[in-house]
């Protein structure tokens, strides 16, 4: 295989992994604070449609991403209001948020179907990446670098800062954290909002970078895969990075096999692979019951104050 082909495959993997990494990081932080938000898919779709709408009408892709983050936060605040403010069941509220995101994105996206924008290009000028291998370092778009940078930042935040310690304490033992004087609901709301912002960015990556065109339900369940990746990662940002890039590889394999016209694999079988891989990964995690089970935040999904 020539270097050019190999590099372009690796570039595709990074692009496919980025939305999963972004959405997964956001969910990881929310879950670390004890909030199980199953509305990732819905928040991603809100971000995808808001990002596309703003990028299309202003002509600015960065403005689109900013709008996507805001839309994700807005969607996350609906979740926070219901499940944190009013104590509604987190599983049910997350599902409601996903149904809402699907409906809202296809309602507001109806006018954009088939419209195209100039998609997000590489961050660095082309002459940085004259050699194919240099493209691996300098050829990505800004969101790929942002996702990698945020992974490191979230890792450091959770393990090395006082605020990260407090966030984890709230997720492990909300009652004690409250007794010491930390504002459990405020911290959880902030973590949920961070999750919403990153899910929004991840969703917008689909409509602004991967396919510069609006299509209904274009995230195709990637939000749920992001939730699964957090379990796979045992709530560790570094492992989430590995998981997201593994799934990027699975998605790239699907694309390559389709392009190469492997007739012994029906396109439908290829389209199943990410979902089957998710189930396989979750199963393997549980079989290897090492760190994963012990690492689950103790208060994950439980309401506060307990009712």
């Amino acid at each position, binding site marked *: 295989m020539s270097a050019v082909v190999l590099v372009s495959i690796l570039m595709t993997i990074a692009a496919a992994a980025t939305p999963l990494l972004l959405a997964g990081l956001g969910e990881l932080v929310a879950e670390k604070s004890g909030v199980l938000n199953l509305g990732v898919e819905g928040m991603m779709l809100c971000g995808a449609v808001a990002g596309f709408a703003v990028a299309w009408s202003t002509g600015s892709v960065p403005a689109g991403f900013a709008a996507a983050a805001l839309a994700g936060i807005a969607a996350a605040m609906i979740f926070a209001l219901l499940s944190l403010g009013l104590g509604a069941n987190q599983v049910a509220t997350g599902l409601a948020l996903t*149904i809402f995101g699907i409906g809202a994105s296809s309602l507001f996206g109806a006018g954009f179907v088939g419209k195209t924008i100039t998609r997000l290009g590489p961050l660095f000028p082309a002459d940085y990446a004259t050699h194919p291998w240099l493209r691996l370092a300098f050829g990505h778009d800004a969101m790929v670098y942002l996702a990698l940078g945020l992974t490191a930042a979230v890792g450091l935040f959770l393990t090395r800062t006082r605020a990260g310690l407090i966030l984890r304490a709230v997720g492990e033992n909300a009652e004690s954290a409250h007794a010491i004087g930390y504002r459990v609901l405020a911290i959880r709301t902030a973590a949920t909002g961070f999750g919403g912002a990153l899910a929004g960015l991840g969703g917008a990556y689909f409509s602004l970078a991967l396919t510069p065109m609006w299509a209904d339900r274009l995230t195709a369940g990637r939000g749920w895969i992001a939730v*699964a990746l957090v379990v796979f990662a045992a709530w560790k940002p570094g492992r989430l990075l590995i998981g997201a890039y593994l799934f990027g590889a699975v998605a790239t394999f699907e694309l390559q096999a389709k392009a190469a016209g492997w007739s012994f694999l029906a396109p439908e079988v290829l389209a199943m692979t990410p979902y089957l891989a998710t189930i396989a990964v979750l199963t393997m995690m549980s079989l290897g019951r090492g760190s994963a089970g012990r690492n689950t935040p103790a208060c994950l999904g439980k309401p506060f104050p307990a009712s």
Partner: protein
Amino acid sequence: MLELRPRRAPSRIMTYLSPLIAIAATMATGTLVFGALGYDGLRAVEAIFLTPLLEPQRWPDLGVKAAPLIVIALGLAIGFRANVWNIGAEGQYVMGAIAGTGIALLTHDLTGWWILPCMLLAGIVGGAAWAVLPALLKVRLQVSEILTSLMLTYVAVQVLYYLVRGPWKDPDGFNFPQTRMFSADQTLPAIAEGSLVHLGVPAALLLALCAWFLLSRSVAGYAVEVVGRAPAAARHGGFDAGRITWATMLASGGLAGLAGIVEATGPFGQLTPQFPVGYGFTAIIVAFMGRLSPPGIVFGALVLAVTYVGGEIAQSTVRLPAAAAGMFQAMLLFFLLATDVLVRYRPVLRRRG
């Protein structure tokens, strides 16, 4: 200022009142939101929530749309009561339809009364089979059934696409991706000559009655309740949570599969790529709106059927996009979850100071 005080016991009145408050709030918000979007908000809400109820010619359609929602939501509610979150009903619904259609394609040149019962049975088995893996992984390895059942939904839809585009494509169908039409012996009869309402509609009501009896009057129903509300007490009392997970997953999968094959042999008459319309997801809203109880589910299914039929009306009268119905359905669930706080808390007006 307004303050929420915990009630000593959940309010019975609010349990039944909160779905009605949620509907009213959805109608009010819908008027404002769709008004702000430049539509005639009041007429949109009228078309979606009232017209289907006021025009008798729409009633058969309401029944046809409510039936699958009732059947799927009954199964889901049994699981939700036991804290088993099967949210892959859409996949089980598709798989049930596929299994039943398999029988139909095998018997397409045969006649006999036995064909339809075999198809229905295959639908139940197909739906239940699609719930086996999530149940197994949940019981043996504590893998979240939420994620596995949902992932299998995407897989089921791809299986459907593969079959209707490939091996099951109608040889006389001008290359359209669809199976052959079912024969007369493979089609669910209507309740009366010329009626749109198929036998699945009264059957759904009968199922709701059976489920009501099972949940409120039997030991099995009690076991489900205990495992869901007090897992520790359930272990003490000798109720096996693993068995409850198996039973509720298989029951909800089987019911979703039954709904799938009924929909295929009734309204559709064949399998096409357009078969999955999201009933499996809407049924989640129905289950919550119905307070996880069978009579409530019949009511909830009717409400959601109204939004489906009304959504179609609003498309032609107010030019509302098709997705608007989905927005209304999501709003219903949001407001329901919000008003449910009143079941557990009492709002008290208090002076500051």
